[in-house]
């Protein structure tokens, strides 16, 4: 994906327009649009099954879309001629269940993709991986296997693994919902630091406090549509749509 000539950093880095996606007969996304600017933290909230994970998967082209358009840095993600690899270098994803490679140590998990996919020299990648492990506060755990780490530690390795691809945009899919309350904090503070460093983040989350504090913009999805969105100050105080109000009253 050669940076599209027409795209400049003051335009949205991710631009989702009227995206429709069905699994078989079930329409999961029914015309979703959203914009994310460089350095912005966008939080997506909404009830289970409303299509949040599906939206992230579409942005990352892990699944195809039926209609609409998704531009990342001005390039159409669902263009069949698109080099997926170029997209993978720009957009990185962190999953709810961490999905680490269980047969590789924490360090190896972080090193694998830069070596295999980006074809970078091993020494350089290792030095970078050690820095990243340090950044997510896991010094000393380099040689531990995922099975020997707590959920929060595994999730931070997964974040380091995504960062190793030096992405421009990071997608987080409910990355704390499999964790116990104590470890949630560790992971959230790691994400907060990333946001402070200026990383563009799209996160699906149930942590309303975190969304309010770190988010620049909140989207509320229900049944495959975006019901309401706005900056956290207005979104949480003055939600207009009754569906949003109902959801917020249940969760807050």
């Amino acid at each position, binding site marked *: 994906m050669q940076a599209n000539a027409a795209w400049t950093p003051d335009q949205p880095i991710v631009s989702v327009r009227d995206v429709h996606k069905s699994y078989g007969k079930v329409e999961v996304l029914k015309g979703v649009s959203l914009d994310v600017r460089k350095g912005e933290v966008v939080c997506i909230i909404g009830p289970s099954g409303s299509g949040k994970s599906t939206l992230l998967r579409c942005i*990352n082209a*892990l699944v195809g879309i039926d209609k609409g358009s998704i531009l990342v840095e001005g390039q159409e993600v669902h263009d069949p001629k698109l080099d*997926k*690899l170029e997209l*993978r*270098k720009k957009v*990185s*994803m962190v*999953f709810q*269940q961490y*999905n*680490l*490679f*269980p*047969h590789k140590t924490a360090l190896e998990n972080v090193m*694998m*993709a830069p070596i*295999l*996919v*980006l074809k970078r020299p091993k020494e350089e990648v290792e030095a970078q991986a050690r820095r990243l492990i340090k950044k997510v506060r896991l010094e000393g755990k380099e040689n*531990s*296997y*995922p*099975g*020997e*780490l707590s959920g929060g530690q595994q999730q931070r390795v*997964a974040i380091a*693994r*995504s960062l190793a*691809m030096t992405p421009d945009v990071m997608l987080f899919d409910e990355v704390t919902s499999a964790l116990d309350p104590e470890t949630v904090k560790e992971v959230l503070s790691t994400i907060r630091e990333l946001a402070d460093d200026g990383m563009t983040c799209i996160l699906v989350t149930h942590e309303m406090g975190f969304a309010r504090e770190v988010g620049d913009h909140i989207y509320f999805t229900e049944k495959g549509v975006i019901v309401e969105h706005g900056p956290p100050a207005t979104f949480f105080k003055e939600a207009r749509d009754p569906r949003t109000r109902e959801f917020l009253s249940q969760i807050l």
Partner: protein
Amino acid sequence: MDSFWEFLRHVHDAYGINLVHFYDSFERGRLLKGMLTTLQLSVLCIGLSILIGIFGAWLQGSRFRVLKTLVQAYIQFFRNTPPLVQMFFFYFALGPLMPRVVNDYGIAQPMLGSFAWAMISLSFFAGAFNIEIFRSGIDAVQSATVEAADALGFSRWQAYRYVILPLAVRICLPALNNNLVNLVKTTTQAYAIAVPETLFVASQIWSDRINVLEMMITLLLFYLFLVGILVWGMIRLERALAIPGFGR
């Protein structure tokens, strides 16, 4: 050593326990050669059948229906027919169809000898089971782990080679172990197409020397030993591949 052979000869003379295949240097020589042939056949078939398993399982995951159907047909054919008949099919039916080549003495002979056919037929036989064994291991690898590899930009082959296969192998090692044990035992059926492996040589010796019981016992102990080594090796491998916190 020589005095030990003398002792065995004495045991034969004194008690009638006929271990001629040990103390007679000619018989010992051909028995050893037979054992070596069994060893070669086993190692080659293990290697080939594992390769067939890896590539077959990879093809089964392909998007192309035709490929999948072909692999499935192959598996069903080799799983559901007797291995001895398969070997006869290769040797007696396919063998004569192969072009002949002229050897060093100027005599035309089949391109592939009985050893090669035994190796091919046994590898295909065990390979069919290996595909299913690897496939079950692959299916047991979490799809989420594979999705993570995809999201990191791994190609389909890279995901297979560096993530799916290493995990699948660990999961299916016990089943693979069983199949390889079976394979080593099945090499004896190469006897039927006159491959000079252990059973073949042993039967020659017991016909010549009329020491059926002693020969049979030797034979059983040999296979017990051979399979024992294989199992020991597989257990070592399983230990070496064990990952802290994964599986058990």
